[in-house]
């Protein structure tokens, strides 16, 4: 039975899921568009799938999972052995992947998501950009990126010398940070972070997923 991803091509968390599917060479799935502009994600039917009213949700037979970082972990475990070894190969690899996934989740994502929300999404949701928030969160992100810069000067990727779920998890929000939120300098001013970013963002899998963004689709 095919996999269904309930989400949207422009959604960062959906992109995290779709990129993982691509890395694992899983092409037999369907993207079921959830129209957030129409509030579908808050409808009673959708809330049965995702009680917090968020996307994405993955359906795979009788399994239904929400939270993109749980989804990508499930996919990486289910399809272990095909495509990119996103969890590494050893117990030590796996521990470091988990560690940097948590770093992304707890240290990198909070300030990045706030900057992106203010600069890119606020107007879409009837609000306006609060530059004080942007300034505050940029200061936090700078400290985090300094640690990344030092770490990536000794490691090609976050968990070591292999591309993993930890690097992948950074793709969607960082893409918007660099290309839509006007904060590319945070990345380009740090040579090792910049090299890492150029490497992971040019992967064909992510480029393919960017092409699924509904706002980029040509008529």
């Amino acid at each position, binding site marked *: 039975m095919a996999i269904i991803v309930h989400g949207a091509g422009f959604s960062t968390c959906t992109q995290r899921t779709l990129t993982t599917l691509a890395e694992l060479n899983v092409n037999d799935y369907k993207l079921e568009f959830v129209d957030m502009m129409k509030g579908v994600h808050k409808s009673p039917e959708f809330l049965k799938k995702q009680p*917090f009213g968020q996307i994405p949700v993955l359906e795979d037979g009788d*399994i239904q999972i929400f939270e993109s970082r749980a989804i990508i972990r499930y996919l990486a475990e289910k399809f272990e052995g095909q495509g990119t070894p996103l969890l590494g190969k050893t117990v030590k690899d*796996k521990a470091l992947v988990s560690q940097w996934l948590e770093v992304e989740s707890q240290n990198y994502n909070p300030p990045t998501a706030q900057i992106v929300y203010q600069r890119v999404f606020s107007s879409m949701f009837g609000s306006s950009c609060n530059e004080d928030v942007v300034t505050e969160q940029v200061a936090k992100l700078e400290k985090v990126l300094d640690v990344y810069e030092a770490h990536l000067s000794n490691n090609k990727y976050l968990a070591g010398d292999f591309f993993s779920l930890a690097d992948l998890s950074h793709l969607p929000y960082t893409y918007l940070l660099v290309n839509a939120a006007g904060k590319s300098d945070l990345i380009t001013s740090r040579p090792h972070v910049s090299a890492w970013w150029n490497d992971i963002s040019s992967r064909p899998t992510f480029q393919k997923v960017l092409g699924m963004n509904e706002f980029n689709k040509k008529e």
Partner: protein
Amino acid sequence: MDPDTNGGDGPRRNLFVKLRAFGRISSQLRWLNRLDPSNSSLAPQFSENQHDTPTFSTCSPICCSPGWCLRDQDPVDVEKELKLVTVSLKAGHFLLPSYKAKQPFGLIPCLEDGDLIVFESRAIARYLAEKYEGQGTPLLGKTLKERAIINQWAESEAQNFQPAIGPMVREAFVAAFGIRPVDEEVVAAGMKKLDQVLDVYEAHLAKGTKYLAGDDFSLADLFHTVYMNWMKSARPELLEKRPHLSAWIHDITTRPAFLRCLQLDWENASPIQ
């Protein structure tokens, strides 16, 4: 000394944490639960130029998780196998090059297992659960499907629950130590978010499972325990009219492994060099 092998005769595991944050957090949580800030013989003295204390905000209340996770794996003799090392907030140990070499963000906790160093408490707990799979409580379930649902609720803790309650716990600490008064706006915002999140948890647990991911205790429940333990005493009104949530909180916060974890002897742990 190879961390890739399972086994009871592994090297001593060093759990590096801050005395003032980990040990303090666990004792502070009990202390806050008693609502008795005058009993402050253990309280750190914060100077006016207090460093930014990121450790209070996100990971500290989960600090118990790694030690607790170990304890939940019954065959692991924590007293023999676990060495506790304190990283003092007051003394700025988290800025020491020797600590930053292990945890470059200067946060606690950090686990050393042979030549493997792991930080981020949720990653540490997961590493331990995977390493000791097959022993003690099956914290990651038994099937791929069970594991997926456990991971889902574990992520819910990180993305929905913790962002709501974390700032409130931080306010409680900074006020209790006289750093500054509570920011009531932060508390109000936290309570509002928590109300929404806890409604979801109540409805979910009302469906009949004993724990978040099913009928067995898992990593997903474990991640919630420390903050829920604080919440049940500090904000009991959040449990009113949520009987399933209350029953679950009572269950997870009275597990023997958790209670033993709160008694870990940080006072006699050696400090980081």
